[in-house]
C-alpha cells in the first residue's frame, strides 16, 4: 500500500470509500495516525466523498407513506405508554443483521459527509465575509489615524508654523508650513504659485536644524488658481527643522534641491 514513505492517493481514496479489505484498512489507519501528509490527503478524499454524496438524487416518497409512518409512530408511542417497562425481545437473525450491518454504517457515513459538506460550505462563506469586514475595519482605522494626525499637527502647541514667501520681490507666491517634528507630521499650503511646464514640478524641502542634508518633503503642482498643498508626506520622526524651502525640479522630483530656492522660511524653535 505504501508509496515509498506515504500511502498512495488511490489507496487513501479507497480507504475513505471503505472499499479496502480489513487488513489493508488497518494498515492505512495505522499509517495515517502517524503521518500528517497522508492524514491531510485522507481528509481531502473524505471531502470529495461528501461531494459524491451530494450527487445522489432524492426520490419522492410513495403516496401515503408519510401518513402510514406517522400512524405507526403514534401507535408505537401508545404501546410504550401502556407497557413502559417491557422490553421487546428481538429474535436473532444472522442474515438480517448482516444486511443491516453492511448498509447502516455506509448510510450513516453518507449522512455525516453531507452534513460535513454543508458545514464546510457555510464556514467558508462566513470566513470570506469575516475577511471582508476585517479589511474594511483596517482601512477605516488607517484613515482615522491619518485624519487624527492632521488635526494633531494643526493644533499642537509644539508645532512649528512657518510662512514661506518669495525670496525676491514681488512677494506674490507664498506658502505656509505647519510641522510637528516629534511625529514628522507636515501640512503645507502654497498660494499664488506660477504654473509650470509639464516636465517640471515644485518640491518642498525640510532643512534640518542639525545641519544635515535637506529632506525632500513632497512634490506638488498648483491648480489653475495657483494654490497647492502637501499633506502628511513621509518624513522621518524627531527631526527639528531649521527652515523650509520650495524649489522647481524635474517632474519625477530630485534628491537634492536645485537652485534657485523659490520660497523659503526659517522655522522658529518649537512652541514659539
Amino acid at each position, binding site marked *: 500500500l505504501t508509496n515509498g514513505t506515504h500511502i*498512495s*492517493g*488511490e*489507496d487513501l*481514496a*479507497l480507504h475513505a*470509500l*471503505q*472499499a*479496502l*479489505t480489513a487488513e489493508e484498512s488497518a494498515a492505512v489507519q495505522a499509517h495515517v495516525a502517524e503521518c500528517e501528509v497522508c492524514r491531510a490527503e485522507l481528509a*481531502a*478524499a473524505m*471531502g*470529495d*466523498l461528501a*461531494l*459524491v*454524496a*451530494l*450527487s*445522489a438524487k432524492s426520490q419522492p416518497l410513495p403516496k401515503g407513506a408519510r401518513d402510514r409512518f406517522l400512524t405507526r409512530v403514534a401507535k408505537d408511542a401508545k404501546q410504550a405508554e401502556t407497557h413502559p417497562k417491557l422490553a421487546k425481545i428481538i429474535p436473532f437473525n444472522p442474515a438480517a443483521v448482516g444486511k443491516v450491518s*453492511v*448498509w447502516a454504517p*455506509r448510510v450513516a457515513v*453518507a449522512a455525516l459527509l453531507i452534513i460535513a*459538506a*454543508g458545514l464546510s*460550505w*457555510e464556514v467558508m*462563506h462566513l470566513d470570506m465575509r469575516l475577511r471582508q469586514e476585517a479589511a474594511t475595519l483596517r482601512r477605516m482605522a488607517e484613515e482615522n489615524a491619518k485624519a487624527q494626525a492632521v488635526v494633531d499637527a494643526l493644533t499642537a502647541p509644539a508645532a512649528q508654523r512657518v510662512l514661506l514667501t518669495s525670496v525676491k520681490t514681488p512677494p506674490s507666491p507664498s506658502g505656509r508650513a505647519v510641522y510637528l517634528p516629534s511625529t514628522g507630521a507636515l501640512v503645507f499650503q502654497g498660494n499664488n504659485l506660477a504654473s509650470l511646464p509639464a516636465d517640471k514640478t515644485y518640491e518642498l524641502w525640510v532643512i534640518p536644524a542639525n545641519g544635515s542634508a535637506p529632506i525632500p518633503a513632497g512634490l506638488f503642482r498648483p491648480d489653475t488658481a495657483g494654490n497647492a498643498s502637501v499633506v502628511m508626506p513621509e518624513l522621518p520622526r524627531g527631526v527639528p527643522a531649521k527652515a523650509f524651502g520650495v524649489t522647481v525640479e524635474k517632474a519625477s522630483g530630485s534628491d537634492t534641491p536645485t537652485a534657485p530656492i523659490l520660497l523659503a522660511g526659517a522655522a522658529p524653535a518649537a512652541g514659539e
Partner: protein
Amino acid sequence: VEDVVLPASTDLSAETERNLMIEKVRAVMKELPPEQQRLVELAFFEGMSHTEIAAMTGDALGTVKTRIRSALMSLRKGVQA
C-alpha cells in the same frame, strides 16, 4: 405597537448555496467518463470493495483504483473551479 422580528424556520441563503453546490456536483459527475461514473457508483452507493469491482467489471485492480481516484480528483477540481 412594537415591531417584532420573527425567526425564519429555514436559512434561505444556506439552502440556496447548498442547492447550487448540489447542481454543480451533479454537473461535474455527469461530465465524468462513463466508466469512472460507474466505478464511483459501485464503490460509494453499492458499497463494493475494489476487489469485488475488479472481479465484476473484469478490469485490473490497478485500473479500478486509478479510475476511482481520477473521478474524485476531477470532482474536486470541478467544484473548486
